[in-house]
């Protein structure tokens, strides 16, 4: 099989580079082993919330020069200040262009609402999710929080107590439909995605409208857990129109319905642009010629190679096994690329789980154009993007999605300019 670009990994960064390249006429394949981080997304993409030294960041563009000083191998440092600025704007245009509606922009962080009801700074938030512009108050005064009876992954009481601190007084309600009773009979079925399938059906949505109408008389707005919009996007708009009140979604514990919907949307945009998406396959090994990757082999395709001009490694970090740790080292399993890590295992962790964990900053070494290397020698046509990269802490810096999106677009530009 021959492609212009072969992308290993079908998460955010793999899909974005794939869409970017196929929109510009390159024949791409994405080989994905399964779920990605989008499946448990908050529904928001962070760009930069904190500098490596812990300083809070309000305006990411203003902080980038300081970040480059503090963390010279950070993916943003490799982009450089100007490119970083240009790419953030491009990314926002990119989402608009493929009709993923978002709130927020790169000028200043806004705040998303966590499943615990607290606020956290972020860059872009999917439409319909509740946000706060200033991190101090919410745009609603007396919302009704409606949870599905028996749904254990959404916490109305936590949210109510946190919102009260910001002057928003919630009332708590529950939703019950005959269709939900069937789910409840099986003790493991009351999970967000299963509930969302129920609320994809028009007759159930109509019943939901009746419940919300009847119970929201004293509410200025309605808050629902993000359990709608798995396979259709119009549910919240429809509810808004029928009930004539602002309606907001809040993220639940995983799986994330908005995240899965976004993943599916990105995938279909990729395929509409001529991309080939192979799901459930794992890349096993590669063949090299000199300082170039010539072809790779996958589990499903046995001895039929994938031959390509360029290769993008978007396999993520430990969870998705882009990186693997054993008792002695951290390695990259497909190409055995150079990985930055501390040799002494005791130094991979901090004993407080909420402190910065060094293992989270380990990743594959690249040059400033994100080309990978082995034993110090650069591969000319192998690029790494997203969570597998070295030099950043996605949680402490609040930059995981930003690194995935910006590095993917940057690599795509590099490949196009060749």
């Amino acid at each position: 099989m021959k492609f212009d670009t072969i992308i290993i990994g079908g998460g955010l960064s793999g899909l974005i580079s794939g869409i970017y390249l196929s929109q510009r006429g390159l024949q791409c394949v994405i080989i994905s082993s399964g779920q990605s981080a989008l499946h448990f997304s908050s529904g928001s993409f962070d760009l930069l919330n904190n500098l490596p030294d812990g300083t809070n960041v309000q305006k990411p563009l203003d902080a980038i020069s300081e970040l480059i000083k503090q963390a010279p191998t950070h993916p943003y440092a490799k982009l450089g200040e100007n490119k970083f600025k240009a790419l953030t704007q491009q990314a926002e245009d990119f989402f608009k262009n493929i009709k993923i509606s978002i709130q927020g922009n790169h000028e200043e962080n806004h705040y998303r609402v966590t499943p615990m009801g607290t606020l956290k700074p972020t860059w872009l938030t999917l439409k319909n999710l509740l946000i706060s512009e200033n991190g101090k108050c919410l745009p609603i005064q007396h919302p009704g929080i409606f949870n599905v009876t028996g749904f254990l992954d959404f916490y109305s009481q936590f949210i109510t107590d946190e919102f009260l601190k910001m002057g928003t007084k919630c009332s708590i309600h529950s939703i019950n439909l005959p269709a939900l009773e069937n789910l409840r009979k099986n003790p493991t079925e009351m999970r967000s995605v299963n509930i969302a399938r129920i609320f994809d059906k028009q007759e159930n949505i109509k019943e939901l409208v009746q419940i919300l109408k009847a119970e929201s008389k004293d509410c200025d707005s309605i808050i629902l857990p993000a359990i709608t919009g798995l396979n259709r996007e119009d549910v919240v708009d429809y509810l808004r129109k029928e009930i004539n009140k602002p309606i907001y979604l809040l993220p639940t514990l995983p799986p994330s319905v908005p995240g899965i919907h976004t993943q599916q949307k990105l995938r279909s945009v990729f395929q509409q642009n001529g991309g080939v998406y192979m799901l459930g396959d794992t890349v096993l090994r590669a063949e090299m010629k000199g300082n170039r990757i010539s072809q790779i082999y996958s589990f499903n395709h046995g001895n039929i190679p994938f031959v390509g001009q360029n290769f993008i490694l978007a396999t993520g970090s430990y969870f998705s096994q882009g990186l693997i740790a054993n008792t002695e080292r951290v390695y990259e399993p497909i190409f055995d690329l150079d990985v930055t890590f501390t040799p002494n295992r005791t130094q991979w962790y901090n004993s407080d789980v909420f402190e910065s964990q060094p293992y989270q900053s380990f990743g594959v070494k690249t040059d400033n154009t994100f080309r990978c290397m082995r034993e110090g020698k650069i591969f000319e046509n192998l690029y790494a993007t997203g969570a597998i990269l070295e030099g950043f802490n996605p949680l402490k810096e609040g930059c995981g999605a930003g690194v995935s999106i910006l590095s993917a677009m940057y690599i795509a530009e590099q490949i196009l300019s060749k």
Partner: protein
Amino acid sequence: MKQNEITQSFDVIIIGGGATGAGIARDCSRRGIKTLLLERLDISTGATGRNHGLLHSGARYAVTDKESAEECIKENMILRKIASHCVEETDGLFLSLPEDDLSYQSKFVEACNQAGIRAEIIDPKEALRLEPSANRNIIGAVRVPDGAVDPFRLTASNVMDAKLHGATILTYQEVIKIIREQNRVIGVKVLDHKTNEIKSYYAPVVVNAGGIWGHNIAKLVDININMLPSKGALLIFGHRVNNIVLNRCRKPADADILVPGDTICLIGTTSSKVPFEEIDHMRVTPEEVDVLLREGEKMAPILAQTRILRAYAGVRPLVASDNDPSGRSVSRGIVLLDHATRDGLEGFITITGGKLMTYRLMAEWTTDLICKKLNLSAICTTATEKLPGSRESIEEISKKIISVPLTQRNSTIYRHGDMADRFSENTPLDNSLICECEEVSVGEAKYALNELDVNNLIDLRRRTRIGMGTCQGELCACRAAGLMSDMKKICTNRAKADLTSFLNERWKGMFPIAWGDTLRECEYTAWIYEGVCGLTSSSKK
């Protein structure tokens, strides 16, 4: 700190909520003694909850310590009867590997027989048929009546029975002072960690059942007990690779016992002296992990490919005899000290040494002494009367909750025995699962919250196994926190603080073994709780 002088009188005050303390509370209350048990944390938080969960046959001690071996086998047979829902009758094998001296086997079998332990040499092929996970290269095998015992359940059942007989059990109450009147102890002052109040309780007899912490309790009245804290590290694997307890047939050494329990198995232990300053902060070192893995793989080679869930360590309360200040001649036997005769202090007893297996016997001896001091003649019934949970057969309990989904029914009966029907309102809402790994339902969690003295998420884990499975509290922790706040057991701020400390407690056991799949799980947990949910350590405030 509020000085709130609440005074209450009892016949006996027991300090320490491990298996021994709970056993004494049960024994005393059954003999009609007005009993108070005080525990500074939750029940089973010390060595009780940090061991193998091995129902020793005594075979391990037969060669070196006949007295302990005899105590073990007697208690082993008693626990099978009175605590059947806490015990799994798995049997045990003592394996000789090619590197072991096979002549030890005959000495071992003879010593077992002398101690009254059934020990049967079997053909290595037969042993491998019985336990396919054992090393294919074994050159000898002896079958003994070992088993598995769940110490959390055992202690909780003792507490439950004590309460049914009128005992008062108070957790999160730390004894800060022992009140004396001349040469007599008359009560204790405690700090209530839940309310930050100081309270006083009075009784003519005070029992120190604090395990290794008993050393510090005795110090409150200037009594020195020559204790030697001995750390033992263990690893928990994510699968139950063996169904029979595996031991090495050699002189007891590091990492030579592999015990199956619930859904997992455990390898242990190591043995090293630690200073008293460290007993509250046990950490498993990379060297200990390496030894446990290396030795464990020799007995069951599949362990090399089995995911490790957690590493933890307990502290054994070893006691040197009074005439040996150097501490060289330590015994694992039971040490019962009447401080009236030993130190001239009336009304104060220390029970220590021993092991989980002999907790009931330790309680019996202690209660006999308490009775003597109180001039009572009531006799002990704990060796014959069954514990709550063990009073009905599995068939009888199953019938009562027949409509609960099968896997869930099996898990709940396994965990709670005949108490399983207590929490089965059997509505779809109560049957829905909080913890998928361990099949813990909303109903079971509610039962534990209402009836089993649960104060926080970590307590709930000890009563139900929430967060003990493969995912180590990925989503169930949050669900349980939500449930606790919905049931108004705790406010949402407390619930979140609780979640934070629960996650940190899990992490403590995970980072020593965080590579491979365990590290994947750790990364995922961090993404969910820190990333998506925005929890930080400052959520405590």
